[in-house]
């Protein structure tokens, strides 16, 4: 298997222009994600997981290091990658259908092909009867289904997800995890998924990348050997419970140290 996307010695420091303070968000981070892998980035706040994801999408420049997509150095956002946002980032003045069509419209995809693809992905995320609704008529979970369908509609090789379920309640989040797993099982797209929820990381991932803060570094990489396809039974698997507890132990150590330092 070949790497789908690689981050090579990425460093990034934020400078606050007002206070003059510097935040060392990422320090020499290396990450290789293989084709068909589902990788979760997890860590306490401030560990640079979202920064790393945005650098991999080309939304943020890194101070040093390179990102390679299919072995080629990447210079900005590209059609082989698509992003799902924590804030959903839906256009409130457009219907679900038009929001899902957004990426295709930017690419000037032929109209009937766009219509077909949009309908397909709206059905896939379970929003068939809401296709002509506006985002603010939908619940948070449904809004993020729109965000997911919009990313899938451009048929990317790599799906980048930035805490997509972070603002949803626990029940909705469980439902969406199962749905995402079902969608992922269909074609095993390469996924990089940022989360702060331990159970979510274990449920979805093939590998979990645990990051530590200040400076943001990769702390440990965990292979998740739970059988697929995963479903709600997976959550009661002893191995699931064990891995979740293991990650919590690790994160708790970091958080306690941070609290002490503060």
């Amino acid at each position, binding site marked *: 298997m070949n790497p789908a996307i690689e981050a090579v010695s990425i460093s990034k420091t934020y400078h606050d222009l007002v206070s003059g303070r510097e935040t060392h968000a990422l320090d020499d981070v290396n990450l290789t994600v293989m084709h068909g892998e589902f990788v979760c980035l997890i860590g306490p706040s401030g560990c640079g997981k979202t920064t790393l994801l945005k650098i991999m999408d080309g939304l943020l420049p890194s101070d040093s290091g390179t990102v390679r997509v299919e072995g080629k150095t990447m210079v900005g956002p590209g059609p082989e990658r698509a*992003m799902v946002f924590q804030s959903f980032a839906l256009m409130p*003045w*457009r219907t679900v259908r038009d929001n899902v069509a957004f990426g295709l419209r*930017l690419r000037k995809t032929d109209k009937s092909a766009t219509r077909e693809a949009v309908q397909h992905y709206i059905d896939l995320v379970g929003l068939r009867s809401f296709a002509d609704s*506006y985002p*603010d008529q939908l619940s948070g979970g449904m809004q993020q289904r729109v965000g997911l369908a919009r990313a899938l509609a451009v048929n990317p090789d790599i799906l980048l997800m930035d805490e997509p379920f972070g603002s949803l309640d626990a029940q909705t989040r469980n439902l969406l995890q199962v749905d995402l797993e079902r969608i992922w099982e269909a074609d095993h797209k390469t996924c990089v998924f940022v989360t702060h929820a331990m159970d979510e990381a274990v449920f979805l991932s093939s590998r979990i990348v645990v990051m530590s803060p200040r400076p943001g570094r990769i702390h440990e990489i965990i292979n998740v050997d739970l059988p697929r396809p995963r479903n709600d039974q997976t959550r009661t698997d002893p191995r699931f419970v064990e891995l979740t507890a293991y990650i919590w132990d690790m994160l708790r150590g970091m958080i306690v140290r941070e609290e002490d330092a503060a």
Partner: protein
Amino acid sequence: MAVVESGRRSTRWSRESLTVIGLRLGLLAALLIGWQLIGNDEVRLRMPSAVRTFQSLVKLTFDGDLLPRLYQSNVAMVTGYGLALVVGISSGLAMGLVPLFGSIARPYLLALIALPMIGILPLIQAVFGIGVAARVVVVFVVAFLYVALNSEVGARSIRPELREMAHSFGASRWQMMRYIILPQAFPSIMAGTRLGLQRAISGMVLAELFLSGVGIGSLLSFHRNRLDAGAVFAIALTMVLEGVILLGAARWLERRVTRGYVA
């Protein structure tokens, strides 16, 4: 705020909206009757009744030169207002989108708002004379500010996560403008457009009254000097009608463009 236009055409003439229209017409009738009652047609310079006003209006329209003067006035108004829209919207958007430019230019625009128009009329006269150019400039100056400042507010209200999203999906500069920035700024731009229109109409009359004796403004002062209150009211009524029609047209345009917009 943007008007919500749902696609439900069947409910357009619902019972509620018919009731509203009926009550509006009733109010209009009551106002006209009241006007007729308080009017005094025995003395020419007294407040004219509704009937005298409408008689004057008919006379001015068919025997006088109301229409050509209205046209003359509107040439300056439309030109000045059109310029104000083009310059105001583009500079307002630029101020909102380029923060440095915005913070440099904003104090100057705000200073202009406090400036009484009547005070700079001599200045405009000195530079542009008393021809059509001077009137265009007056209309432009009074309308431009409101268009620019509202467009700036619109451009600044753009949600950064939507720009980031569009950037991630590979939007070009033009696509960013077309799909993300303009739709979000549009309600504010339209608010500025309406405010600017109202100012442009009053600027037009102002210029004609105090700068050059042409158009509807000069007709107004002519009849005022002859103490013909009926004609003065008829001309004022014409300007009210023009304002209503133009603002209605602006609203119609806004609804067409924002069809389906839920703000």
